[in-house]
């Protein structure tokens, strides 16, 4: 047991989660504040027969993990804003070609080179919309190292289940901070393995024809089935087509496989929501301060509630709507100009109840900041 308790950075917790989930291949390019993920895996993967490569840039890192996924591996890359921007084209390829992979973005202050060693949460909408063309995407987050670990495992699970890239959106505070992590025993967390086709050699295999249950079994490159993978619209064998019916149904499939499974994908944490008059919604490191505030006020009898989004995309609109149904005020705590706030507004009834409590100067929003903003929202001034 003792050995399973470690005191690590969030980035290390993420690497540990990836190892737990069975990562076979990591390709990346260093960038603050995500680099430690690569550094840990550079040491650990070769010892387990896995593979680590430092590529020439983020574009090639993203491409390489797609290649590595096709040979049957669970794969991941990690980066931060500038690198994430560079990955967008290849990320779209993974969406289109339905390649399971995990992309970690440890957010720092943006835009551009921005504020590299400081925290930010400004890439939430980019995770959703950064690549061109309509599509859907899964994006997860976490506010402490146990969750970082679990959400990393969940990310791999979702990637394999839905044959899709999954984005993990941490931030500088979570990535660099050290705290306790208990590494679960093997088997105690569910791990979804690559679903491989049972179609035999010589029998027609359809890499892009969903099964009854919506899943698409894969066949490893080098294995029995020689099929085609492309970023063009394609038919059920993977061959290019611009036939309008093919195009329409593929795009609908790509969106629906995620949007209709929002329930399965969604992860959140809640506290004191039953009778909450003010609900703080948050994610990532900001959620720590939000929870702090809520605990603090509750201990003084004030009816605050806490809702932490551990999955942001697909946005769990109906969950949020229900949880917030009877709150007087909903305050979204985030370190950007209101990206999740907008999503919450679109989700709930009477969006005029929704307020933004934010900080955008590179410092972690503190319980004091939130307190002051709450006072203003409640009409009490500062």
């Amino acid at each position, binding site marked *: 047991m*003792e050995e399973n*308790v*470690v*005191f690590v950075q969030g980035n290390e917790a993420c690497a540990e989660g990836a190892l737990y989930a069975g990562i076979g291949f990591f390709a990346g390019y260093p960038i*603050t*504040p995500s*680099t430690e993920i690569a550094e840990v895996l550079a040491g650990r993967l070769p010892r387990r027969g896995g593979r680590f490569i430092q590529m020439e840039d983020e574009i090639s890192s993203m491409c390489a993990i797609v290649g590595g996924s096709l040979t049957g591996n669970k794969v991941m890359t990690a980066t931060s804003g500038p690198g994430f921007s560079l990955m967008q084209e290849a990320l779209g390829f993974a969406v289109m070609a339905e390649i399971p992979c995990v992309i970690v973005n440890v957010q720092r202050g943006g835009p551009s080179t921005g504020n*590299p*060693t400081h925290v930010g949460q400004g890439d939430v909408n980019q995770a959703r919309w950064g690549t061109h063309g309509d599509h859907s995407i899964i994006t997860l987050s976490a506010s402490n190292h146990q969750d970082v670990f679990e959400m990393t495992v969940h990310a791999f699970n979702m990637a394999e289940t839905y044959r899709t890239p999954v984005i993990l959106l941490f931030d500088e*505070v979570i990535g*660099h*901070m*050290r*705290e*306790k992590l208990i590494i679960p025993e093997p088997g105690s967390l569910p791990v979804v393995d690559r679903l491989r086709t049972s179609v035999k050699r010589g029998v027609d295999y359809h890499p892009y024809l969903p099964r009854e249950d919506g899943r698409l079994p894969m066949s490893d490159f080098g294995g029995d089935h020689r099929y085609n993978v492309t970023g063009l619209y394609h038919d059920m064998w993977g061959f290019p087509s611009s036939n309008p019916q093919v195009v329409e149904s593929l795009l609908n499939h790509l969106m629906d496989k995620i949007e209709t499974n929002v329930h399965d994908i969604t992860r959140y944490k809640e506290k004191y929501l039953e009778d909450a008059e003010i609900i703080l919604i948050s994610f990532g*490191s900001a959620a*720590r*301060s939000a*929870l*702090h505030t809520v*605990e603090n006020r509750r201990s003084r009898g004030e009816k605050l509630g806490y809702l932490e989004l551990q999955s942001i995309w697909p946005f769990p609109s109906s969950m949020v709507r229900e949880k917030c149904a009877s709150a007087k005020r909903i305050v979204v705590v985030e370190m950007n100009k209101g990206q999740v706030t907008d999503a919450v507004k679109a989700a709930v009834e009477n969006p005029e109840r929704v307020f933004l409590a934010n900080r955008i100067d590179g*410092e*972690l929003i*503190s*319980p*004091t900041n939130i307190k002051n903003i709450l006072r203003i929202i409640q009409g009490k001034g500062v």
Partner: protein
Amino acid sequence: MEKFRMVFSGSGGQGVITAAIMMAEAAVIHEGLIAVQSQSYGAEARGGATRSDIIISDKPILFPKVTQPNVLVCLTQEAYDKFSPIIRPGGLLLADDRYVMPRKKVDAKQVNLPMYQTVMEKIGNPIVFNICMLGALIGLLNIVRTESVLAIIAKRVPEKYVEMNQQALDLGVSMAVPLRS
């Protein structure tokens, strides 16, 4: 227990962050406490003045940053000048004799020890200056036990250096214990 909100500060090569990690790790792994440790960076991953925040408590720690430390360690003048104003009234300010000349009036218990000098005299290697500082802190406060830190040292430090580190730790403890309030 008391909640320790600590800031360790100094310059690049002094091992301030390592010390912070060891302290916090010792608390978590060997004392069953809760701790978080974080640090500020300069441009990208490097920079001049180093600061590490550590919070140690027996209750969950959410906000991981320290705004008003009740324990402040300053190993350079620059760090002292920058951070001494934020110490919590009544807190403890530990500084090194050689590097820091206390200039301002601070509403805190100021302890200036000749840690660097003693390390150089007794051990002769500046690399364990930070460990001596840890010892001094342990000597001054009931945060973690010496054995806990030693266990961490044994895990993290190449074997041939373990003894030297232990020596430095003991040095620090012995310098501080007399001053314990």
